[in-house]
């Protein structure tokens, strides 16, 4: 008896399965690319951090400079308002000495 062969035919696997593997060259290239990418990321991050460090260093230098200027100004202010300075000041020297009045006798 002849069975209909269409069922068999219909279900038969018409795709040929063959194992697909990367060759050794491709593997090496991909590995190399991955290492390169990771390396680049590392270098980029490192450079980024370093650039921040430079920026930080510049800001710190600016702060130090401004602080030094502030200190200079504070010293100058103290010198200008010192008693020694006002004693030798011409305007102060020409001021009339105050007279205390109104004490009970």
């Amino acid at each position, binding site marked *: 008896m002849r069975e209909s062969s269409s069922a068999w035919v219909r279900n038969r696997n018409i795709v040929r399965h063959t194992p697909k593997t990367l060759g050794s060259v491709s593997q090496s290239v991909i590995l190399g690319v991955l290492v390169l990418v990771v390396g680049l990321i590392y270098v980029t991050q490192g450079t980024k*951090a370093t650039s921040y460090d430079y920026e930080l260093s510049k800001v710190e230098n600016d702060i130090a400079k401004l602080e030094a200027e502030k*200190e200079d100004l504070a*010293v100058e202010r103290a010198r200008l308002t010192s008693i020694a300075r006002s004693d030798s000041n011409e305007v102060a020297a020409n001021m009339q000495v105050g007279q205390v009045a109104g004490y009970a006798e």
Partner: protein
Amino acid sequence: MNRIKVLKLGLYAVAAVILARLFFVQIIQKETWVAKAEAQHTLENTIKAKRGEIYMMDGSEPVVVVMNEKVYTVIVDPMVAEEAELKEAVFNENMKENLVAKLEEVLSDRTRRYMVVAKNVSRENALRIREAQPSGVWLQETTKRVYPEGTLAARTLGFVNADGEGQYGVEGALNAQLAGKDGLLKTVADVNQVALSIGDKNVKIPAEDGENVVLTIDRNIQAEVENILQKKMDEYGKDQASAVVMNPRTGEILAMANLPSYNPADYGNVESASLYINRVTEDPYEPASVCKAFTFATGIDLGVMTAESTYYNVDKIYIDGWPIENASKNGAGVRTMQYALNWSLNVGSIQALKWIGGDAENITEEGRKTLYDYYVNKFGLGEETGIELYEATGLIGDPVEGDGRDSLYANMTFGQNMLVTMIQVAAGYSAMINGGEYYAPTIVKGTIDTNGELVEKEKAGALRRVVSEDTSRQMREMLWGTRSSPRLLGIDQAGYFVGGKTGTAQVIRDGEYVMDESVATYVGFGGAEGEMPEYLAMVRIWKDGETTDAQKMALPVFSEISNYLIDYLKIKPKVE
């Protein structure tokens, strides 16, 4: 053996040598190479702590009187420096005050690699040099102490030496508080020595800056006291003077002056190191008759005498075979203790000691012990007062041990044969006239916080009761009586209550008291009539080898200071 094999063997041998070398470097010499590598890419800097500034009061506001300034030292490498560049950048008109070497010296020996050519160069001039970029020249940053008030209170403030250590005065005594603590920066750095945040061994310990200390000294009072001292020294031809002004109600020092002074910014430029000494706290001396008030206060406090108690005064008496005379002669007769204080009669103060000992005719051991107890344990004479400065103790003789105790203590009743500092006497007097409570003198008011605000230290309060309130009142009146006796009438402004006592001390030379040299002292206080005194001032003036009379020379100094203080402190007179 074919050539391939030979080549192989050769390669193996080379590989073996390389491996051996690697093993040697990486395993055996690991520590050495790691250390070298770290040294190359590690930046290690001390973060210098900023030394605290010193403030004085200006009325109720603190004003800075000792500061820090960044300055630079210019260093030259003569081997590589260029003459033209040096002339333009360093050896120019702007730098003339800072140069410590001549251009010819730099050029004379080109084999040297290091030469300091300028010191204390301002930041402005340092920037000019940096911009000019002369070859073989570099700058070293350092900090200099700056004293905007010049010589004001120099012997109280002290100075900072080249190593950054405080010496003498406040700078020395409070060095730990002012100096702070250096920090540390240890980090990975690149070739430009820029600190990098990468690395897991970076260390940053911030510096702890020193505290900004505020003194109780009022710079206006300090300046005026120094002016008065200088004027009177010139007028009387004396070359040494010291003064201390304090608030007797709190122990706060308002002025502490010593002349001659020096410039602390140029502290090496003095004729003698004795100029560094603060004679108010570090120089024990015999204050003489100002101590009569301590003796009288002891007698009054014990209830054995009053201002009106009488004795028979003579010009000279003998104790232990030694003659003791009054400076004011022809005062024989029955006299009150007020009279004895007014005329500063030594025989009168010895009589007080006799009464203290319970025997009107003789000095007793009990009397000596009691006087010692009052002098040392109550008034604090011969003991450190606790002020935040270097202090000397002095010497108060034992009341029992040793020969000639009666003579010793007889002399001590009028302030001779004993050594005390001015600050001890001033603090003891304050206790005597402020109601009877002893306040340790203090020169530190507080600190300045990071917001620039004054943070006052906790007030210590009275340490002990010295005499009763009534004794204190009687002593104020006795000292006012002494000052306002007819011979001194009119020296104080009307409406004020000003009292005080002179002391003209004989000086020991070659083991003996001499008649041709003396030191003049005056201690006085003042305030409104009927009120507690608001200030106490002690003055000492002298010249080695000369007599200096307290009545003629120390008292007028006090009077000028007192009149200034009445105005400056805005003390209102009593109006009837």
